[in-house]
């Protein structure tokens, strides 16, 4: 099997804090990491390779420093990497990102499966996976929590839904996104780390992947961010006082007044 994994380098949002006085993000010292959901995607690709043979190619689009995320994928066991990097890609929304990724994947050539994380923790849109699948003309199945089997050109997997799960059969090649339940990602091996260290990542530019300049970057993006602002701070919090009975009684009174109970 040739499995392509889509990874994204993101700021570690769990390290992002808010300055309560100015209501701005404190970014100092916030590290860049592989999007946590993509770790499950990488792990699942490696497991499929271990079972069925083949190879794993990690792909990302981003600035030159996104090569670090690809190196990390190699340290975990990915065989090959592709970095799509070009200033012309800057400002891409999910549509233009998906377009660039689909062009990059076409250039890579034959593949059986594309795996991505459910969503990236910086944007949380969960759109690049399905949009890329559409542009590649392959089926898409979201929120995979278990791959039951791969047989020839077919795969059976469990898809997590709001009220339970579906067992879904899909033809291959397909693009799936995975949730954290699917596996327990491994840590990099020493051999993998050595390989990653000596890895030279070459970037494919917009021209390399034959992209239409009207469909990439800000120019190709249907959406535009017009404003970024801090969320409205919550009203004054109140710590209740007294003994347990008094606290609970005062809480019940407040909730009753607001018709919450």
């Amino acid at each position: 099997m040739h499995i392509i994994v889509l990874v994204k380098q993101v700021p570690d949002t769990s390290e992002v804090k808010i300055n309560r006085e100015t209501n701005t993000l404190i970014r100092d010292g916030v590290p860049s990491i592989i999007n946590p959901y993509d770790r499950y995607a990488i792990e699942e690709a490696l497991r499929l390779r271990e079972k069925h043979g083949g190879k794993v190619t990690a792909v990302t689009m981003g600035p030159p420093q996104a090569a670090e995320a690809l190196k990390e994928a190699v340290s975990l066991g990915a065989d090959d990497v592709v970095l799509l990097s070009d200033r012309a890609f800057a400002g891409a929304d999910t549509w233009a990102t998906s377009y660039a990724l689909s062009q990059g994947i076409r250039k890579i050539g034959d593949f059986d499966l594309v795996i991505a994380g459910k969503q990236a923790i910086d944007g949380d849109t969960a759109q690049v996976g399905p949009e890329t699948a559409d542009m590649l003309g392959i089926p898409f199945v979201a929120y995979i929590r278990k791959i039951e089997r791969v047989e020839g050109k077919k795969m059976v997997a469990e898809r997590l839904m709001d009220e339970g799960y579906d067992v879904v059969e899909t033809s291959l090649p397909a693009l799936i996104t995975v949730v954290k339940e699917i596996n327990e990602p491994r840590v990099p091996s020493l051999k993998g780390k050595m390989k990653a260290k000596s890895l030279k990542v070459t970037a494919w530019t917009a021209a390399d992947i034959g992209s239409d300049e009207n469909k990439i970057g800000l120019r190709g993006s249907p959406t535009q961010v017009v404003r970024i602002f801090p969320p409205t701070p919550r009203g004054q919090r109140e710590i209740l006082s007294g003994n347990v009975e008094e606290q609970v009684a005062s809480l019940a009174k407040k909730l009753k007044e607001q018709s919450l109970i």
Partner: protein
Amino acid sequence: MSVKVKPDTCTGCETCVSVCPFGAIEMKDGKAFITDACTLCGACVEACEFKAIEKDVEQAGPAKDLSAYKGVWVFAEQHKGEIASVSLELLGEGRKLADKRGSKLSAVFIGAGIKGKSKDLIAYGADIVYVADDQALKDFNDDSYAAVLTTLAYQHKPEIILAGATAIGRSFFPKVASTLYTGLTADCTVLDIDTVTGHLHQTRPAFGGNIMATIVTPNHRPQMATVRHKVMKPAQRDDSRKGEIVEVKFAQSGAVRTKVLKTIDELTETVNICEADIIVAGGRGLGSQKNFLLLEELAKVLGGAVAATRGAVDEGWIPYSHQVGQTGKTVCPKLYIAAGISGAIQHVAGMQSSETIIAINKDPDAPIFNVATYGIVGDVTEILTAMIKKFKEVRG
């Protein structure tokens, strides 16, 4: 690149460096310098009090004729014939947008054996219901759902299409947006329309809720968005309303690529936590599965649902489908009771838009108190037991 620093105006105050969510601004010779990591989000433009940073608004791409696009559409999601509560909220919101713009509100209804329910959507505010009722549409399938909606959108050219930010909406809407080459904004919490241009101002949280972003789709139509549960007011039912029901034929084009072999419902109670008005949630601080049962008892008294942190799920106290947070679900109920939850940002990201939050923790410095409306410091089991008793009395 189209975010630029005007070096003559920049005072080197470094405010932009600290507000950039992507770490894309560095100081060079005492002036701000924008690096390749810039995503053109514009946070710095807003933050610079000296107006030293500019964002070019040159949005290229051939200008389309937008005037041909009219009307607001809502994807009316159903499960086994039951219309999802978020769809009723969208009909309420869609009605407002359509009225502001002086246009019609339509619902797109997809499934099998659902035709009879179409009139309910009219009662909830739709002027037109496009219903695709076909045995082949019984199970959710990205390909067939997207095919129905895409075809209808090509034919009728709506200005706006909304769906709930549910598993289904978030799965197939991107395929529709991709095919139509238009913008899609996920997880909106506020929508507003410019009555002149018809631009939909779509506001959504990003960075785990740390910042809010307002997004528009200036040159493409339809404007597509998914909207979170519980943030919009549901439409009121009015059976005297009149509307048109249009039956849509579903024709499978090409081979069936994916199919659902079976569906398993997994929630331990019937409430989907995203749809609950009241949520009682617990974390590792509860200490044991036995104490977790107190949450279920309290939820029962309040008519709410039970949720949990990742820690409690990892302990095996409750299935993953109840997990709230960055790697679980995002909820915004009217009342969220957080018991024995420390308030790690990964959990807070999934619940901080709840209307009223009650935090119960023995540690007065637990970060959960920062997002709480009311806090109770003390022993969690003791307080939960007292709450069950008291709320039972109050509710009679």
